């Protein structure tokens, strides 16, 4: 009973069906992003038509109920809180990675990495709540409160990815540095960090994406006043917070304007992903 031609062809047919099923599922997964963009654009169109791009930059401020739709205060708020969080989290994150990789004894490093991983999984709403009850009494609902909480939230992203890229540096580099008699810090600064640079930069870019898209924590601690931030203690509102606060009662033009801000967020994120991929591709060529 060797396999007859009929058997072989039915075998082929089953495999072909399998392949097409898998292709179909992959197509569904791949199309989600397209659907998101399409629906953001569709919902944004009414506002882009009736309000127009310029008024998002030039209106008096954001008073959607009085037909004023200037998004710049929220854009500034998002950028300020993201910038602050990145400035704070980058050295701490890289320091964490160095600690795990070069300074801590093995068991401590494993324990510490575990904690950072758990920190990465804590929900933003818990960070926001904790920030609200513990930190806000100290620093008020402000840009600063947002920066502190957000820095804590993106630190694990930087720490874990930076450690991965440090671990990917060839062992020979380390041995070479040791053979040259470099001290530990000289080896890190002159050899390891430059070698892992593209991975570390990518981790920071991903962290920027997380920070700018974060909603719950900033809604809860930043105070949500629509204004250009003029000090660290000024309450601010970010683009994401604005959507979360106003979607539930937004009328037609207003709702559509909120989708425009969603589209803007999406655009920023796609840009960041593109930059990150470009960097890792460049480093592959190097």
């Amino acid at each position, binding site marked *: 009973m060797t396999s007859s031609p009929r058997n072989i062809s039915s075998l082929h047919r089953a495999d072909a069906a399998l392949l097409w*099923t898998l292709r179909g599922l992959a197509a569904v997964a791949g199309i989600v992003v397209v659907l998101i963009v399409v629906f953001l654009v569709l919902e944004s169109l009414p506002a882009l038509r009736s309000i127009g791009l310029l008024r998002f930059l030039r209106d008096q401020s954001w008073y959607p109920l009085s037909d004023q739709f200037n998004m710049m205060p929220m854009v500034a708020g998002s950028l300020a809180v993201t910038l602050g969080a990145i400035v704070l989290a980058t050295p701490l994150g890289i320091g*964490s990675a160095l600690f795990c990789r070069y300074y801590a004894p093995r068991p401590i490093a494993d324990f510490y990495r575990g904690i950072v991983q758990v920190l990465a*999984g804590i929900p933003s709403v818990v960070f926001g709540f904790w920030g609200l009850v513990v930190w806000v009494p100290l620093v008020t609902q402000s840009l600063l409160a947002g920066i502190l909480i957000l820095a804590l939230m993106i630190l694990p992203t930087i720490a874990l990815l930076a450690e991965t890229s440090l671990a990917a540096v060839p062992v020979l580099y380390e041995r070479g540095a040791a053979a040259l008699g470099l001290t530990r810090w000289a080896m890190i600064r002159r050899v390891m960090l430059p070698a892992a640079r593209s991975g570390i930069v990518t981790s920071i870019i991903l962290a920027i994406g997380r920070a700018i898209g974060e909603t719950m924590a900033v809604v809860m601690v930043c105070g949500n006043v629509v204004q250009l931030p003029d000090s660290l203690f000024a309450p601010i509102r970010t683009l994401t917070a604005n959507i979360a606060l106003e979607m539930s009662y937004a009328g037609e033009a207003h709702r559509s304007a909120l989708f425009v801000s969603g589209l803007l967020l999406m655009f920023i994120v796609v840009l960041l992903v593109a930059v990150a991929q470009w960097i890792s591709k460049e480093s592959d060529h190097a």
Partner: protein
Amino acid sequence: MLEATRNERHRLRESIITMIIWLIAIIIITIFGWLLTDLLVHGLGPLTWSYITTEPADAGRAGGIGPILVSTLLILATCMAVTVPIGLGTAIFLAEYTNERSPFGRAVRRSLDVLAAVPSIVFGLFGSAFFCFHLGMGFSILSGGLTLACMALPIFIRAVEQGFRAVPDEYRMGAAALGLSRWATLTKVLLPTTMPTLMAAFVLSVGRAVAETAALIFTSGYVDRMPQSLMDSGRALSVHIFDLSMNVPGGDDNAYASALLLVGLLLLINLIATWIAKATQRQWTATA
């Protein structure tokens, strides 16, 4: 003499930097310990069996979170019921049936990379426009679960794909040498070997989904009654914490209890995933 002072300076710099690095680690551990102790101190008291099982009263200031836990479970179940088949199929396709040169495979991968970076509030907007309004599902557990599925897909796919890539090629060659069809190779060889990774990916995605808030506010909504069907609005645990701390004066105690429960669940999920990963590693090193 000069040499000696230079060495001295180097040594001083080394020890200062070592101190800074240890200080960073200590600060982060302290903050984490602070967060955890704070949740335990304030949350453990109100977190009783009756809190977990009873209905909320007085906007959540009193009573429990029974219906909220049911809604959360239903949202998660919906999410995973969609994520697992689509995600598994996509991951198998990407790992086993495409290579770097296939334009379709590359397009899917690129699109998943972007999807993984989309902010949760944008998922919320999309879910509201697409599931709630366009498909007419309204504020419902179904809308929320489907929105979460879009979010969980790239995480699940990435983890599963790595599992398939970790299977040594000898397994596939062995299966091919035995004359197994692709289907048989998949179900008899690849799926059983990657089962632990599949479970870890599942647990990881559940963890991500249960932590989510922003994508659920305008898809599954705020209603804190016991849901009667998937078409009812249902409040997730994370949304409950948000609502209690932002909109309900005097809701902090119960928000603490809910936050502690949520973090406890996530720690458990994290432990399970790590344990599975470790067990798998042991299995691989044992067979290698």
